[in-house]
């Protein structure tokens, strides 16, 4: 089945958990929880704004994890944290900091995956170990410009799935699915058996469907966060995510082979 990982900025509104539940109810396979950072280098305007809004509300990693812990009983799908290196590496192990403690805190809150866009594979050794020790999948990203040897290493070292950054750009809505998306997904699939999720700029169900014809699923970020920023309710977002779900399911029906492949790879907990 084609995977649908909607993204949600942790703490974007006081009732942000309701959006998470709405995503779940709409058929999300997992939710990526953004832990807002002051300097989100790889994010475009929408997710920057979402992060800022959350930070202005006083949200912290601790408060987001506490909210997730509190909502644990309502959450049935995997949660994947997405954040930047500074929040991950912050502090020394001796003082309860460092990536080891960070990963343990994620795991304690029921988070099972981690994406850190500014930690490329070359800088990932320590985080790799820390994540593994805490039982967290460290998802690595591949980009259209990633050369073959790096791609192989990313495929080998990524856990859970490989995140295909569809476009040479920041996060943000786009009129068209980038032409680089499909070739990248195909190249990744040649070097790994992990599912390949395509993200960055997937803005409509049609684009999601198109992406899913090569990849094993999609991450939807800015398109959803823009609605939340505009004041849409959890119900509104449920409908939005459901539309993506429907589009992906249709792809599944078109492509039985791909679906079968996805079911075998089994990263869905």
């Amino acid at each position, binding site marked *: 089945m084609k995977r649908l990982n909607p993204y949600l900025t942790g703490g974007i509104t006081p009732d942000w958990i309701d959006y998470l539940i709405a995503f779940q109810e709409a058929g999300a396979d997992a939710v990526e929880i953004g832990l807002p950072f002051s300097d*989100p280098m790889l994010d475009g305007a929408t997710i920057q704004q979402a992060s800022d809004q959350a930070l202005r509300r006083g949200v912290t990693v601790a408060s987001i994890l506490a909210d997730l812990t509190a909502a644990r009983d309502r959450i049935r799908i995997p949660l994947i944290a997405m954040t930047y290196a500074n929040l991950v590496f912050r502090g020394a192990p001796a003082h309860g900091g460092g990536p080891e403690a960070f990963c343990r805190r994620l795991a304690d809150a029921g988070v099972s995956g981690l994406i850190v866009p500014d930690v*490329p594979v*070359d*800088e990932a050794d320590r985080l790799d170990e820390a994540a593994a020790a805490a039982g967290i999948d460290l998802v690595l990203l591949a980009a*259209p410009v990633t050369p073959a040897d790096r791609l192989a290493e990313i495929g080998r070292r990524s856990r859970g799935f490989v995140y295909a950054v569809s476009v040479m*750009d920041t996060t943000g809505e786009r009129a068209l699915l980038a032409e680089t998306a499909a070739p990248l997904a195909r190249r990744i699939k040649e070097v790994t058996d992990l599912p390949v999720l395509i993200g960055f700029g997937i803005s409509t169900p049609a684009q999601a469907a198109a992406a899913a014809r090569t990849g094993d699923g999609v991450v939807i970020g800015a398109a959803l966060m823009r609605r939340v920023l505009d004041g849409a309710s959890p119900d509104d977002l449920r409908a939005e995510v459901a539309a993506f779900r429907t589009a992906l399911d249709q792809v599944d029906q078109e492509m039985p082979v791909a679906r079968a492949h996805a079911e075998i790879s089994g990263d869905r907990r």
Partner: protein
Amino acid sequence: MNATAPGAVIGSVMGEPSATGRFGQFGGRYVPESLVPACAALEAAFRDAWADPAFHERLARLRSEFAGRPTALTPALNLSAQLGVTLLLKREDLAHTGSHKINNVLGQALLAQRMGKTHLIAETGAGQHGVATATAAALFGMRATVYMGERDIARQQLNVFRMELLGAEVIPVTSGSRTLKDATNEAMRAWVAAVDEAHFCLGSVGGPHPYPWLVRELQRVIGEEARAQVPATPDVVVACVGGGSNAAGTFAGFVDTPARLIGVEAAGGAAMTDGRPGVVHGYRSLVLQDDDGQVLEAESIAAGLDYPGVGPEHAHLGTTGRAEYRTVTDGEVLDAVRRLARSEGIICALESAHAVAWVLRAAGTPDLPTGSTVLLTLSGRGDKDMATLAGEVR
């Protein structure tokens, strides 16, 4: 690298960083995968160029024929007499475009040309790096796009118009602190989207590997010239520190001497003094941040020092004790600009005035005993700051 007594001679310090771009525990290449190949290509191009005498020759020609190097070493006779120290000023304010930033940019533009790039992207705070980038782009027939925080645009308008006159596009950055920090974010984002044809012309010794090394090597000319110009090894070498490029270039010329190396930060942007280890803008260093790891907004009257990070090599030099870092306040800086102007006939940039302010405060104290000889890098001229000063000094 162990902690080292100040003044000890260390040969290997300020050489090449480790294979992963580290100076001790600082540095690295914390960038999105989209940028990793570009950083790797830049590193390869730099290694190649730096080993090529023809590249050095072109750079040397540009420096002397275009940028006005070597810059003068001016004995500040009046201040020296007043303060009881011998103060020597390395005059980067006399370099073309008005600051040391041109040293870095000419080298990077040559590299970019060698790599077949046609577009320079830059971040700027005070606008000096933006002007230098726009200048090099004009000279090399490249496009230039400069990201600059809205707040800095307002306080450094002269430089905005200079960039535009040189044909650069200046893009106002309205996010976050609307200063250098956010301009850097935006420039990196823009680079992601244009990495094929664009070179990110980073302005200081921060950023992902190889930038901290590359920029320091390109600024090394400050220290090497000064070393050749001073009558004897100074007791103290001092420079202001924003990202830390003029200080790094200066220190590089004296790191293997017994000279004490002093970097002076803005009290409101003192990553070396108040920062904690962290990762921003692609490198690990000391960063002003809150307990949650959110990067703090710096607050300095000098747009070029109004930055919460600092180059990783400074973090290393500070941690090992080879260099020491001090802070001065905005008020001391304004006094220093005026005092230098009235005593020596030199109007320096607010950034550069940080180094002057420390000398004014420290002279005659144990930190800078009477009789010391001080080499001070005056990183830039103050024309750009006249609007700010008109409001503050009288």
